[in-house]
């Protein structure tokens, strides 16, 4: 049994899986990419802009890993720098100003880990997104399409609806990192993957996500058509909801399991 979650981790990391840009190009029309955080730089690990979903305009933001070695290196393997999170926040605020819903595609092994990222406030950038997203006055839907690596993924997933592809994973730490810290042995990643409860099924049972999207015909037209329809239907319902922000608060407020000790 312990093998299975780690097999899903491997699938979620497969470089041939559709990436953020594949979803943008196949689900939306008229995508116009908007670059830069207006503070320091443009982060290629996060792609964002305006797009049309059937008859409405939306702001779409996606983490992009790339497929080829060259693309992956240019995209920093989908590990965003603080500038990526700040660009995402800028576009979300812009969406709020113009009353557009926000759709996020999450796929990262984690926020970029390096000297520059720390110097420019990786922790602060993620924290600010968590805070600001919690009160964004437009509908937000986040879909985890591959790896949902810790705080770096959550920074684009404080949403009204969070969905996961059936072979995506979502975790507080990589199985390798967990095994190396707990058991001083990164080779015990398979065991750690089972303990961490990181599959879509686990996340649904724990009340972390609302829906699992099946991967039938992954990357083909019917697959994207299904997601487009699901997004349009969900936005329809969310746009009518006058209590969007309080409900988003409650959505996260109830997560956690504690005991009362007298």
């Amino acid at each position, binding site marked *: 049994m312990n093998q299975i979650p780690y097999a899903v981790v491997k699938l979620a990391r497969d470089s041939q899986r559709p990436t953020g840009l594949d979803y943008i190009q196949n689900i939306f029309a008229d995508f116009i990419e908007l670059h830069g955080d207006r503070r320091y730089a443009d982060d290629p690990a996060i792609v964002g802009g305006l797009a049309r979903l059937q008859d409405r305009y939306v702001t779409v933001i996606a983490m992009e890993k790339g497929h080829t070695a060259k693309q992956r290196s240019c995209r920093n393997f989908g590990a965003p720098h603080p500038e990526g999170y700040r660009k995402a926040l800028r576009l979300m605020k812009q969406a709020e100003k113009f009353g557009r819903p926000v759709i996020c595609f999450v796929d990262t092994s984690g926020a970029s880990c390096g000297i520059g990222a720390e110097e420019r406030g990786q922790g602060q950038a993620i924290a600010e997104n968590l805070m600001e997203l919690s009160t964004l006055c437009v509908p937000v839907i986040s879909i985890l399409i591959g790896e949902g690596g810790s705080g770096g993924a959550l920074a684009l997933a404080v949403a009204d609806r969070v969905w996961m592809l059936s072979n995506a994973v979502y975790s507080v730490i990589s199985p390798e990192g*967990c095994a190396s810290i707990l058991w001083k042995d990164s080779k015990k990643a398979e065991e750690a993957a089972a303990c961490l409860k990181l599959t879509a099924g686990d996340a649904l049972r724990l009340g972390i996500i609302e829906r699992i999207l099946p991967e039938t015909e992954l990357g083909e037209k019917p697959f994207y058509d299904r997601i487009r329809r699901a997004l349009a239907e969900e936005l329809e319902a969310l746009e009518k909801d006058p209590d969007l922000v309080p409900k988003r608060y409650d959505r996260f407020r109830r997560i956690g399991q504690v005991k009362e000790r007298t």
Partner: protein
Amino acid sequence: MAFIQFLKPKNALEEGGRTAAPIQQDAGEPEKTCPNCHKPIPLSRLWSSYLVCPCGYHFRMNARQRITMIADKGSFLELFAGIVSDNPLQFPGYTEKLETVQNISGEAEAVVCGTAEIGGRKCCLFVMDPGFMMGSMGSAVGEKITALFEYAMQKRLPVVGFTVSGGARMQEGLLSLMQMAKTSAAVKRHSDAGLLYIAVFTDPATGGVTASFAMEADILLAEPGATIGFAGARVIEQTTKKALPKEFQKAEFVLQHGFVDTLAPRSTQKQLLTRLLNAH
């Protein structure tokens, strides 16, 4: 991404610096060797100086010691003390680990919350404890912090918080991760109500706590020498294969890069907090 947790022996002073030497008994009075200047300091002297070495090195301090140092005498009233961790994922060894840590630290969880007066000003106070799984955040820490900000909002009180954390508690998996979003939303509500939140970074502040409620304060203070960052230095070194600058992620470095407001040595903290509270 630093989710480092480890146990430390019971003596509060043993929670000091990572390379702290054991207490020496040979000189008659117990001493502790400073990991910074390598000189022995009599324990009595260390106690009277808020666990700060004459060289300026700040030893780690547990939650109750801090509360005694910061809150006006007898003013602290604990809240949410009954909220403790469960083992929701049935993570192997976690229940036993919690029991051991509870016994050793004497705390029920990694954060102590309540109301207090600081320089006569009433506020909500939270203090994290490095001796409890290195202040890691699971459901119970997230719940207590969230409940405190909600309480503070209801009572229209400022929040003062001392953070020390290795990050999210991996034994609670996604439930820990979600506490980052939950606490951030509570901080935002408190902030939108026009209320003040002051955070004091103490060593270390990393991972999911830095990337959520710790960094979201209106005013950010840092103890000199405290490590403040998102990813752990060791992980960064392994990933980038580069040697890190000596002062990397130290409070002074973080101040230079613009991510904290000022350094607050322990001896000046109460006075500074009082002045800040009085200004609001």
